[in-house]
């Protein structure tokens, strides 16, 4: 397959179209705006619909309508804008509709800033909106993985009738890398649950499914338990004999990969565990690591430790879990190695 040099956001947008996405309703915000811009001309080429909404509140509800009508639909945003999507996402989850949401993370709370960061881990993995729901959260670490995971996100959204999420960041989204794009996939919008007028059948009501399902509490817990069991994805790098295992996703994992290589060349046994799904967190990955591992280091681009909590839960605190916080600055791999060495010294 031939490869093409593309910006992460553009590659993700093109891959969404090829995954059969035919509706996008969104609003500009840096650093995700290229997705919006790309789809504004690309969707009409495939008889799809692009709407620049008056707000994220409106955009997510257009996605709700298009998804209820059976079409593959998505929107994208970043930090402050993504917060505004959460009300609608809760409704879409509650109505058990498939849709895909992209958060190209930026730094900080409130307005924050447009730098790359991984500040929204809790918002993404803990539900975000109100009530009892979960989203599969995919974390790409390259433009190619943005392409691969957006297609998977649409498939899994359909499989579970549940919204799914791509948690990217400004670096992955803005840098240009070669990507191989898949063939065009056509999606059939005429699922039996899709609203399009009752067409001679019974009338359909798209609302919280709790009104119509017996023993809903058990049903919905089983749904999310099944996702948690079956959808864990990760990449492991030299974890079988590692004295210290770095845990990092997205852009942080790229630096950590370099750190592992550089440390190994100096005889320091680092490994890397890279979650590809953040919810469910890849707990199963921890079964394959060196049982004698001395410490974990969660490397995150935020000002508060967030993923660290999941690492602690996943490893059962069998070894100390430390955090390397980059804030809005991508660390040098040497700084990570240095920190790892100092942690290992303390463990002796």
């Amino acid at each position, binding site marked *: 397959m031939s490869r093409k040099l593309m910006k992460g956001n553009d590659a993700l947008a093109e891959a969404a179209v090829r995954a059969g996405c035919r509706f996008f*309703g969104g609003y500009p915000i840096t650093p995700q705006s290229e997705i919006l811009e790309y789809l504004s001309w690309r969707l009409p080429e495939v008889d799809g619909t692009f*709407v620049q*909404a*008056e707000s994220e*509140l409106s955009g997510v509800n257009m996605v709700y309508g298009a998804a209820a009508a059976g079409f593959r*639909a998505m929107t994208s945003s970043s930090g402050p804008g993504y917060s505004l999507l959460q009300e609608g996402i809760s*409704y879409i989850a509650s*109505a058990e509709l498939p849709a895909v949401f992209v958060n190209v993370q930026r730094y900080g709370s409130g307005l924050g800033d447009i730098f790359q960061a991984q500040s929204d881990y809790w918002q993404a993995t803990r539900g975000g909106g109100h009530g009892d729901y979960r989203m599969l959260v995919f974390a790409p670490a390259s433009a190619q993985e943005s392409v691969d995971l957006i297609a998977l996100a649409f498939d899994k959204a359909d499989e579970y009738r549940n919204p799914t999420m791509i948690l990217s960041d400004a670096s992955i989204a803005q840098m240009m890398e070669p990507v191989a794009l898949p063939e065009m996939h056509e999606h059939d919008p005429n699922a039996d649950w899709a609203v399009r007028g009752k067409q001679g059948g019974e*009338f359909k009501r798209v609302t919280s499914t709790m009104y119509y399902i017996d023993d809903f509490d058990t049903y919905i817990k089983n749904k999310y338990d099944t996702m948690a069991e079956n959808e864990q994805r990760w990449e492991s790098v030299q974890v079988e004999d590692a004295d210290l295992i770095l845990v990092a996703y997205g852009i942080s994992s790229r630096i950590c990969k370099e750190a592992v290589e550089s440390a190994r060349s100096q005889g320091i046994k680092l490994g890397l565990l890279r979650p590809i799904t953040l919810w469910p967190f890849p707990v199963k990955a921890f079964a394959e690591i060196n049982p004698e591992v001395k410490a974990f280091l969660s490397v995150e681009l935020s000002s508060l430790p967030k993923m660290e909590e999941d690492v602690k839960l996943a490893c059962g605190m069998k070894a100390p879990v430390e955090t390397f916080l980059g804030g809005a600055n991508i660390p040098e791999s040497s700084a990570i190695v240095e920190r790892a060495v100092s942690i290992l010294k303390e463990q002796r």
Partner: protein
Amino acid sequence: MSEKRIPKLLVEPNKFCPGCGHGIINRVVAEVLEEMGLAEQTVGSLAVGCACLMMDTFGADWIQAPHGRAAAVAVGVKRVRPECCVFTYQGDGDSMAIGFSETMYAAIRNENITAILVNNGIFGMTGGQMAPTSLPGQRTTTSPKGRDAELTGQPLNMVNQMKQLPIGYLARGAVSSAKDINKLKKYIKSAIETQMNGGGYSMVEVLSPCPTNWKMNMETSISHIENTVKDIFPVGEFVKNGERIDA
């Protein structure tokens, strides 16, 4: 003797309070959709408030939107399924307070949907709080001494907000007399026709009584609409076939 014929779309008796205007409006919408042969291809979008009681009794496909967002949901449906008849059915709190932006922008973009906005001057379902359409001096649970327009603003006239926009159809009707109900049916039919002919955005506001929260009986509610509400919210057609007309 004339035959009592209930539209098939009304699959169960409505659940509104005695004397409420929603039942009449539901019936008028159902009659129009059936007479136009659109019952099988209609998708409605509603949110919360008294309107959501329709989901079980009015047998069209429905989507329940978050509070205020019914217009955005309707836009999502109509853009991907232009062959469907897509309408919102919303109260004044839903469409004009929390949903003002979604309601207005559907009109500003001249989206090819129909909005039926019920103006009863009150938040009904939540127990009678002040709405954007509450009249000056109107006692509600959040304006117990009467609405102070100096402090809370004048009643919101949505027709005035929309009539300068390049939309397809705009009218305000009422359910306070048989004559008004017949006119309302004509307005709703014109609105749906506008949509199905690709004529752009259509909105019909309906003045409707809420005896429960107005603390009035049915008869005084009706005369209140006739003698007071209509002075502030005049009825008639305001935009037709994309042309602004004098009401």
